[in-house]
């Protein structure tokens, strides 16, 4: 027996300015099955909700249609009210009059008519609604943090300090990430390593954190609260338990001329190496791609000299399976290198460097021990040109976005140069100065005003070499686009921040979406900025978009809070709007299995009481299913359906639309 109540909301004037809400309520009262119909100014207000609750009880309603705003906005509100009145909350549906009608049309009779039709469609749907109950899923209270940069470190420490286990996976031999490579940090100019390394040590020593360095994610299965992750521990060729980190092996290694990643290629390292002196763990790994033993099968010097017998050439990659309840992706970013820029010489001028290289030159732990020496000849530069927006905000280069950090680090770089060489000439070419942030604009002003950095608004069109100098040609757009030519000893390009080259692959392993630039997508840019669309997978730091350290750290803490909130429950409650299989009609062709983007379809054996197998049918894993409906569309025998959006419901809605009748005058 359908006894439907219709509640038409004015939404203040949002709806009532173009829709005659009273009329919609009146028309709806004539729909078959509708026993109560009313309009009200604010249905979401307390008195509005009470109207619904009272009507449910007084008129013994079996279904509720609230014609108001978007279900995204107030469905929980009205479902809660419905439940409070004793009716299953899933017997309440919303007709979105505001977004689908009043906001997009003028006030006319047909607008009211459309509103009434929207209500009628939902009335037909709600007649087929069924009582549904939330799904409970257990939670494994261990988090996986992918990436050991400052974002990962912060998230891991916050989660671990709340008492939950954390597994951290870092693909490099040491944690620390990009921040470990920086010299000083804006806007305070404090030493990057000084503030970072204590945290790295804390991670290594934390009883709740298990750290896998030189490791990658092999595969991710499962669902929120119950992920099954396989980690590939790449062979380090060194037994870190036995190794004392004495460094003898590194010293004796005959292959020493390998460009050093940590120093952005400005220094060299051995084939067995520790990335940097403060590395965590501070024990070496063998770079098999460059090691003579692995390339030619002989050498073995390191093994000979190792006093701890820790060198194990035969070590193999190991696959480690872990169960986790939440995953934090904190894989950071990369930068475009100077060879991406034809106008700046495709990287052929050694003294045209990128920002990260400048950081290493300026760093006390860098290849020059903090003395600014230009790569070509080791001379200390007298004049440096900094070019902001190298690649960023340039659709022609395929990077239309702003890399966010460059304005600030360019000002910092200019300042660091001026501090080291008071007579030096620092010139910055910029498009706009984006220094939004606490103390940020002041910082840039200081560079210009106190440190006398010459800021030229304009783009650099070309760089060429002449008599050992780099000639930087550009225009000054503030001076009637007058061409400028500046002689420089070194040019620093603030190259664009980009996603890691393997980020797409990782996103696919994690089943999370990503943007056209391969940065990971958040679930909602404003309201769910740290979560992804895949429940239980969160984001921290520059893997989502270019970010500076303060933003990364705050997002990491935010993500940690989400993880901790998830772990504060023993069971997860999920909306039951997921697919289900009719065992009677399923023939087990499992073509649905291949179509499911969430790998939510499993096999279930139907057996008789005596144990003989009747058939194998599809089974939906309620934890994994996101209710997308792809399997429903594919299933030939219509053996799969979705709770809350059953074929019957949708069919009822659509056929209502095709069978209009004037109810106005009835």
């Amino acid at each position, binding site marked *: 027996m359908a006894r439907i109540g219709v509640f038409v909301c004015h939404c203040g004037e949002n709806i009532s300015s173009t829709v005659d809400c009273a009329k919609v309520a009146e028309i709806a009262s004539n729909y078959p099955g509708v026993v109560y119909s009313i309009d009200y100014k604010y249905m979401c207000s307390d008195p509005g909700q009470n109207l619904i609750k009272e009507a449910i009880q007084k008129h013994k309603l079996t279904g509720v249609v609230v014609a108001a705003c978007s279900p995204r906005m107030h469905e929980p509100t009205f479902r809660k009210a419905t439940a409070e009145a004793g009716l299953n909350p899933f017997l309440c549906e919303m007709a979105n009059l505001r977004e689908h009608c009043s906001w997009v049309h003028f006030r006319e009779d047909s607008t009211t008519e459309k509103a009434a039709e929207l209500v009628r469609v939902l009335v037909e749907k709600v007649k087929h609604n069924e009582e549904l109950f939330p799904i409970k899923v257990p939670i494994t209270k261990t988090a996986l943090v992918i990436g050991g940069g400052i974002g990962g470190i912060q998230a891991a420490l916050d989660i671990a300090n709340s008492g939950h286990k954390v597994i951290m996976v870092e693909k490099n031999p040491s944690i620390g990430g990009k921040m470990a490579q920086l010299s000083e940090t804006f806007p305070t100019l404090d030493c990057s390593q000084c503030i970072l390394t204590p945290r790295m040590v804390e991670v290594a020593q934390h009883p709740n954190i298990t750290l896998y360095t030189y490791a990658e994610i092999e595969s991710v299965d499962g669902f929120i609260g119950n992920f099954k992750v396989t980690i590939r521990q790449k062979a380090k060729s060194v037994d870190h338990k036995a190794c004392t980190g004495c460094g003898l092996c590194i010293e004796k290694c005959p292959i020493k001329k390998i460009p050093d990643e940590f120093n952005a290629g400005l220094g060299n390292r051995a084939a067995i190496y520790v990335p940097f002196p403060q590395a965590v763990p501070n024990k070496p790994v063998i770079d098999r791609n460059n090691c003579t033993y692995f390339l030619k099968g002989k050498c073995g010097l390191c093994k000979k000299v190792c006093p701890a017998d820790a060198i194990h050439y035969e070590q193999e990659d190991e696959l480690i399976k872990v169960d986790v309840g939440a995953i934090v992706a904190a894989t950071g970013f990369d930068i475009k290198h100077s060879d991406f820029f034809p106008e700046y010489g495709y990287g052929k001028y050694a003294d045209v460097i990128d920002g990260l290289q400048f950081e290493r030159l300026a760093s006390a732990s860098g290849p020059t021990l903090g003395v600014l020496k230009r790569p070509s000849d080791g001379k200390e530069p007298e004049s440096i040109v900094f070019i902001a927006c190298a690649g960023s905000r340039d659709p022609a280069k395929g990077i239309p976005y702003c890399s966010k950090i460059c304005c600030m680090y360019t000002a910092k770089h200019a300042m660091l140069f001026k501090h080291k060489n008071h007579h030096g000439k620092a010139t910055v070419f910029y498009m706009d100065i984006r220094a939004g942030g606490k103390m940020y604009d002041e910082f840039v002003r200081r560079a210009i005003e106190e440190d006398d950095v010459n800021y030229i608004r304009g783009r650099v069109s070309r760089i060429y070499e002449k008599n050992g100098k780099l000639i930087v040609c550009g225009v000054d757009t503030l001076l009637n686009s007058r061409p400028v030519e500046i002689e420089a000893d070194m040019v620093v390009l603030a190259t664009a921040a980009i996603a890691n080259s393997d980020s797409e692959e990782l996103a696919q392993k994690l089943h999370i979406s990503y943007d056209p630039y391969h940065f990971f997508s958040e679930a909602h840019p404003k309201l769910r900025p740290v979560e992804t669309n895949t429940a239980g997978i969160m984001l921290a730091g520059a893997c989502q978009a270019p970010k500076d350290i303060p933003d990364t750290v705050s997002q990491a803490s935010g993500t940690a809070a989400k993880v901790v909130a998830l772990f504060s429950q023993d069971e997860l409650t999920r909306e039951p709007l997921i697919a289900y299989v009719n065992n009677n*009609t399923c*023939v087990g062709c*499992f*073509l649905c*299995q291949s179509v499911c983007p969430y790998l939510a379809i499993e096999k279930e054996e139907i057996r008789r009481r005596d144990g003989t197998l009747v058939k*194998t049918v599809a089974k939906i894993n309620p934890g994994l299913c996101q209710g997308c409906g792809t399997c429903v569309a*594919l299933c*030939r*025998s*219509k053996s799969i359906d979705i709770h809350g959006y059953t074929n019957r419901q949708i069919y009822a809605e659509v056929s209502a639309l095709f069978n209009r009748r004037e109810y106005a005058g009835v």
Partner: protein
Amino acid sequence: MSDLINKTSQFFSSGIIDLFIGYKKGRLGEGKPAFFTKPDQLSELIFDENCIVNLAVYLRKPELKKYSKIGILANFGTLRALLQLAAENQITDGQYLILTVADGKVLEFANLKAIEEYVANNLPKPNPERLALLKEIESKSREERWDFWTRELSSCIRCYACRAACPLCYCEQCLVECNQPQWVGVPPTGLGNLEWHIVRAMHLAGRCISCGECEAACPMEIPLGLLTQKLNMTIISNFGQIPGTKREPDYALSTFKVDDKENFIR
């Protein structure tokens, strides 16, 4: 033929099979399906190019459950149907003894992989007459095509012989029998007939092994195989997936590959 009969009767006598599905001589000399349960019946067993019925259609009969192992004499369409059925989890490797005759020699397939190889090496070219017919229909204007199909399909009596004859129509509940909601109108009238044949062709797109049994079974002489064939050809040309050639699922309409680029999702 004696080779085939000898081999088959050996399978019986050694207890490997207790039912053999093959062909015997039909009314016009062509092969008609025959079920052999004893070696002495095998004298009637024949196999030639006129044995066209797709025997895979019988494997879903509950009557066959009581046999411990069934042998099947497979023509090319049957072999492809068996592969497709395996890909769709309807039969398992080793479940049946599968024979065919090629160049006068009896071939016994050790497993589905062997069938896969055999099929890959013997895939026939599409029948030029059929292609010409398809081309002729394609060359018609939209209105003419509409007229053509509404006229042809108006004679459909919805006996579903096309479905019964199809080795890949094995659903326990066909969509037309699903009445909540009633997706396809049951009365054999214009719209319902159109819906049924579109649904049938869609459900076989990317799965149809082109055996032609649907059209052969149609008592009303409707060229309904053309619909299936056209859709199937579209799938093959767009995705390169040829149904009934692989024992693992390879279904264009359901395939989600991890290396699929998702740049169309905004």
